[in-house]
Structure formats: C-alpha cells, structure tokens
C-alpha cells in the first residue's frame, strides 16, 4: 500500500520520536510512505483567527496530495485529521464557499476533487493493515504489560463527520495494543481532553487538564500510557513534570507513541524509534521489554 504522508507542523519540528518511529515501523508492515512537497500548516491554528483562511489551508493541502495521483493520505496528527475532514464536509455543503476556495486554488494551479481516502495512524493500522499482519510482525510479545490508551479528542469527535473511532467508547487503539500481547485498562477519565489547545490562552488550566488525567492513570498501576497524537504527547510526555507540579502530584508515568510500542514489539532498536527522546520516565518500562 502506497500512501502520501502529511506530517503537519508539530511532528516535523519537535515531535521527532513520532516521525522516526512511523518511518521505521510502517514500511515493515507493507506501507510505503510518500513525502509531500510544498504542503503547509493544516489550518487548525487559524480556526480561532480566520476560519476562511483555515479552510483554504486545508483544501490547499488536500489538492496538493490529489496532484500526486495517490488515493490514500495518512495524517498522523489528530488536529490535522479533523481539519481535513471538516474542510471536505464544509466544501461539499456550501457552494459559495467552494467557489471562493476554488478561485484561490487556481492561482497555484491546483484543483480539489475531494476524492481522497484520509487515514489516521489508528484506523490505518486497525482497519486497513489489520490484526493478522500486525500480530505476525511481533517478535517480542509484550506479555505481562498493561497500558492505558489516549485517543485524543479530534479523531473521535464529531462523529457526524465520520471519525476514526466511536466518540464515547473508542476501542481501536486498545485493540492495537492488545494485538502486541499487552493488556489495556478501561478508566473513567479515558475520554478526558489533554488540554493542549488551552496552552495559548490559559497555560495553568491546560497543565491541570493533563496533570489530573495522568494522576488518575498512575493510580491504575499501569506500565505506561500509549497515545497517537503529537499534541496529547506534548502534554503527557514533554510537559509531564510541569503538569504534575501544577496539580501537586509526583508523576512517574512512561508515555509512548503507539508506533514506538509497536516497534519495541517488532524488535527494532530503541534509538531508531526515538525512544531516547521521550521526556517521561520510560527507562524502567524499556528494561522490562529487553
């Protein structure tokens, strides 16, 4: 399977562990990644400022992907995935908006047909690569380990747009973890937001969101938290210390991208998966998997 890959802003500028592990793991599952030229921000950071410009950015990126002739687009960031899905929905239902956007696209020799299949990491692995292939790729099963999952709001809501998993009871990421031999837990705070989008205006509240969720997860006595969104990961991994300080909790929770966990189970070297870049205390967990 050949897919165009859209990295967005956060992954290729700071969340290198996600990019490294995706580039390492997916080709081993038969997914050929095609990098894109001249793409830009997905539009999400502009939604609050100028919705029209934000939709234009989304449409422009999609038109660039269509130009490559590929039918499948892999979007690794939850925010970007929502932005693209929303733009397609708005453009389908609003002819006036469509005409304005089309006119701008023509300036760059672009045209949007709206024909792409948009994937996120979670549904690409769960629904397209599927259980059998993933299970077969496991060389070191993660037996005896137990994880909590973090989906991130924007791949499960709003369901009317067609999202990656169920809005109130998502299970796909949990199943992906279970296919590696580990166990998962259900917990009341599972759907809670990481707070990332409040960082700009209310940083203390954002850190409280993340801190309270991690505190709850830590009490479950799991071996770690598994996510697949760069914004959530920034809150739980990079900002774990400050989140803990904000809610008065001593946090000691290993946080890994799903692709890092999958890579470990595949027997791939830790550095190739960017596991030296995680800021959360992952060493003890890595020890258990060696």
């Amino acid at each position, binding site marked *: 399977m050949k897919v165009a890959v859209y990295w967005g*802003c*956060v992954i*290729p*500028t*700071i969340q*290198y562990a996600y*990019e*490294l592990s995706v*580039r390492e793991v997916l080709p081993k599952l038969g997914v050929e990644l095609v*990098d894109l*030229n*001249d*793409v*830009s*921000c997905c539009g999400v*950071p*502009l*939604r*609050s*400022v*100028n*919705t*029209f*410009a934000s939709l*234009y*950015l989304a449409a*422009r990126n999609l038109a660039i992907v269509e130009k490559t002739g590929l039918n499948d687009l892999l979007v690794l960031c939850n925010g970007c995935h929502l932005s693209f899905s929303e733009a397609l929905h*708005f453009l389908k*239902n609003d002819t006036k908006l469509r005409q*304005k*956007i089309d*006119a*701008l696209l023509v*300036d*760059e020799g672009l045209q949007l047909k709206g024909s792409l299949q948009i994937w996120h990491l979670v549904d690409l692995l769960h629904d397209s690569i599927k259980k059998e292939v993933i299970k077969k790729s496991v060389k070191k099963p993660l037996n005896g380990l137990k994880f909590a999952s973090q989906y991130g*709001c*924007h791949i499960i*809501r*709003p*369901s*009317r747009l067609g999202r990656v998993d169920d*809005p109130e009871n998502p299970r796909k990421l949990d199943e992906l973890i279970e296919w590696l031999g580990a166990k998962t837990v259900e917990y009341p705070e599972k*759907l*809670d*937001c990481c*707070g990332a*989008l*409040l960082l*700009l*205006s*209310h940083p203390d*509240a*954002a850190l*409280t*969101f993340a801190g309270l969720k991690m505190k709850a997860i830590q009490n479950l006595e799991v071996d770690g938290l598994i996510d697949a969104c760069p914004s959530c990961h920034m809150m739980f991994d990079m900002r774990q210390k400050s989140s803990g300080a904000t809610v008065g909790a001593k946090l000691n929770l290993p946080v890994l991208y799903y692709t890092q966990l999958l890579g470990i189970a595949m027997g791939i070297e830790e550095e190739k998966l*960017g596991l*030296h*870049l*995680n*800021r959360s205390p992952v060493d003890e967990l890595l020890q258990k998997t060696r």
Partner: protein
Amino acid sequence: MTEEVSSVLDLMTTKRPDSKLRLQVVNKIGEHKPYNCYQCIKCTSGCPAMKMLEIKPHEIVGLVRLGFVEDVINSGIIWACAMCLKCKERCPQEVAPVDLILALRNLAIEREVKVPESHLQSVSMILETGFVQKPMETVTRKLEKVNRDKLGLPKFREASEKFKSVFMKALEGA
C-alpha cells in the same frame, strides 16, 4: 428568527440585543445554528473547561440567541474553550456550541477586541514558512543536543513563495 427579539431588554444593564451582529456570527457557522437550543445544559455538564475556567457553553449559546453578542465577545470567556468537541458531539439539537465559540473568536479579532496574542503569532509564522513553527533543536534524556539532521530525518520542506501570496489573499477573505 430575525427581528422579533429586538424588544428584549436586559433589565440589569438596560442593554438591548444587536440582531445585526447576531446575524454576522450565525452566518459564520455551518448548519449548526444556535436557534434550536432549548437550554438542556448537556454541553455545560460535560465541558471539561467549565470545571476549571467556568466557561458555560449553554450560556454563550443563549446570549447569542438573544442577540447579546458584544457582551460575550468582550467578556473574554470564549478563549477558555479547550476545543474537545464534546458539546458538538452530545448536543441533542445539533447546535455545536464549539462552532459558535470559534465564530465569536473570529468576530472578536475582526472587531479588534483584545485577544490572546499567541493566537495571532501563528499567522505571521505561517506567512513566513508555511508552518506555525520551524524545526527546533531538542535534547535526549541523556541531555545530548539533537536536530532533524542528527537524527537522520529528511530535510524539512518549507512552503513556496507562491503559497505566501495566495495565503495573503485568503487572509483577506479573498
């Protein structure tokens, strides 16, 4: 629903609603109009930002529905939303308070009401490079400095000059 509420008067402040401004906001959102709200408060009861920042989505919808748009924008409460989309998912009337909040933020910026500066910074970064930030140096857990190059990642590709001029047009609303 246009003029019939203009006779409403806020007895505490003697303010009158502004139906023109209300129309301006409502035109900014798609199919999820605030008129269908019957104040069941399902949005607010599930709102994670309400617990910390006292934002009440049902009140925002209610105030806009009545036409008190300016008060909502000036209060600054619209910047307390975490964009988790639970309100949009759960509203039995398909109202989508989060979409309304985004429309109000757009309007606040158009009217040059005081807004969190950092929201505007991303615009200039996108104009410069196409993205909200440039690749940064980071450190490993052993405090070794690394960047894309050292990690063996391909060169970061910025957007073209042509993009910047079209993006300017888009910002002006084309």
